[in-house]
């Protein structure tokens, strides 16, 4: 595990982002997860290999993404005529048929958001391999987090399948290379999401305000302030769960 994850000691105070409850994160075992004691939302995860594994997966996903966007998704043949389409070809046809706004939404959710997310994440992952990464990496990370909810590869996959079955009633259809690539992408995206630890990435980016005196007090001061209470509170149960978890 990288030793610089939390700047001093294992105990980090955090506020739950769904209920604002103040809690102290214990040192999590690799593969462990801490959830809020009040609302149950995930406070922190600690994937086993937070940089190299998502990096490898993201590179693979980028290659698959290129195939998914260039190879035909599906083809149709009826009475001696053949037609096929790609993802962006679908959005373009919508544009041609007078649905410009829908075409832009489809292009964004199907192509731009997944590609943008992958590219931003790749740049961040490369940059944080040697911490501290420069300030602009934080901006990239923010963009990656922003585009993530709009990348709808798995929804598109189901949409392609429903469309195929609908059209199969009217004409002969066959799946193309692109569809298999979208299927692979659908598996790669959740694998990337579960192997990335955003907190770990942020911890490896340089601080915007290197000198904490004039502005808000950073985490470090707070931790030392509340440390005695924290340790006495979490000492009994902190060693229990990790040891139980690190059995395998």
């Amino acid at each position: 595990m990288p030793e610089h994850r939390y700047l001093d000691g294992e105990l980090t105070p955090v506020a739950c982002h769904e209920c604002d409850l103040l809690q102290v994160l214990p040192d999590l075992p690799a593969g462990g997860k801490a959830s809020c004691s009040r609302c149950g939302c995930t406070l922190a995860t600690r994937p086993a290999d937070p940089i190299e594994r998502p990096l490898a997966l993201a590179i693979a996903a980028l290659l698959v993404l290129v195939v998914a966007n260039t190879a035909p998704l599906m083809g149709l043949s009826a009475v001696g005529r053949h037609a096929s389409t790609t993802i962006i070809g679908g959005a373009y046809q919508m544009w041609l048929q007078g649905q410009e706004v829908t075409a832009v939404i489809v292009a964004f959710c199907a192509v731009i958001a997944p590609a943008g997310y992958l590219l931003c994440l790749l740049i961040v992952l490369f940059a944080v391999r040697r911490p501290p990464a420069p300030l602009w990496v934080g901006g990239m990370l923010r963009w990656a987090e922003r585009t993530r909810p709009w990348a709808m590869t798995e929804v598109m996959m189901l949409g392609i399948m429903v469309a195929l079955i609908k059209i199969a009633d009217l004409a002969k259809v066959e799946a193309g290379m692109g569809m298999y690539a979208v299927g692979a992408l659908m598996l790669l995206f959740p694998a990337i999401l579960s192997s990335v630890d955003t907190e770990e990435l942020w911890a490896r980016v340089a601080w915007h305000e290197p000198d904490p005196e004039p502005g808000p007090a950073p985490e470090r001061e707070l931790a030392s302030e509340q440390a005695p209470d924290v340790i006495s509170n979490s000492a009994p149960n902190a060693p229990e769960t990790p040891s139980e978890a690190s059995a395998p």
Partner: protein
Amino acid sequence: MTSAPVTAIKAGLLSCDTCGLLSQPASAAEPGYCPRCGRELESRRHRSIERTWALVIAAAICYIPANMLPVLGTTTLGSTEYDTIMGGVVFLFTSGSWPLALIVLIASVMVPLGKLVALSYLLITVQRGSVQGSRERTRLYRLVEFIGRWSMLDVFVDTFTVALVQLSPLMSVRPGAGVLFFAAVVVLTMIAASTFDPRLIWDAISDVGSEPASSRVNNPQQESNLG
């Protein structure tokens, strides 16, 4: 369990919405910027209730034409047939693939409607200062956030159907005006879910048990999922 839980806002702390860093702002009124990522700090999302209501109402308005107007028009040898979203579900059902019909029905009709109802319910209970079922309401919010994207299914189905079936004059499919409204419902409800601040659900509890913020710090539950 009944003692007032210590939230970040009570302890005079703020967690950054962008990078999650907990920091102590100089003043609560003007928290300034996050020392780590440099983004503006705010204890709760700005005008969360008003913005979410505006987006929910806009989405509810779009929901009507999304279901009334046709999403697809199929032209076969000169005669054109228009299909609404429900028409597409019925088509899938009668052509024998009822599991798909069920998926499309859930994703395109029930999920958008459920999202509008759920977000309205969350907004109303927050505005009333309800303290009951906060955990369940947070779970409902999480469900709304998770499930929202799946409503885009029908937009993708229509797009690829239109893109592929272009065999004029034999047969061609054109998109109808309903697609735009339907896509608007999905996008608006997704933005509405992200402007709603789930911490507001819990603020009512903190306000009721108004003990001075002690230095008691809560311990999160730990679990590990090693395969």
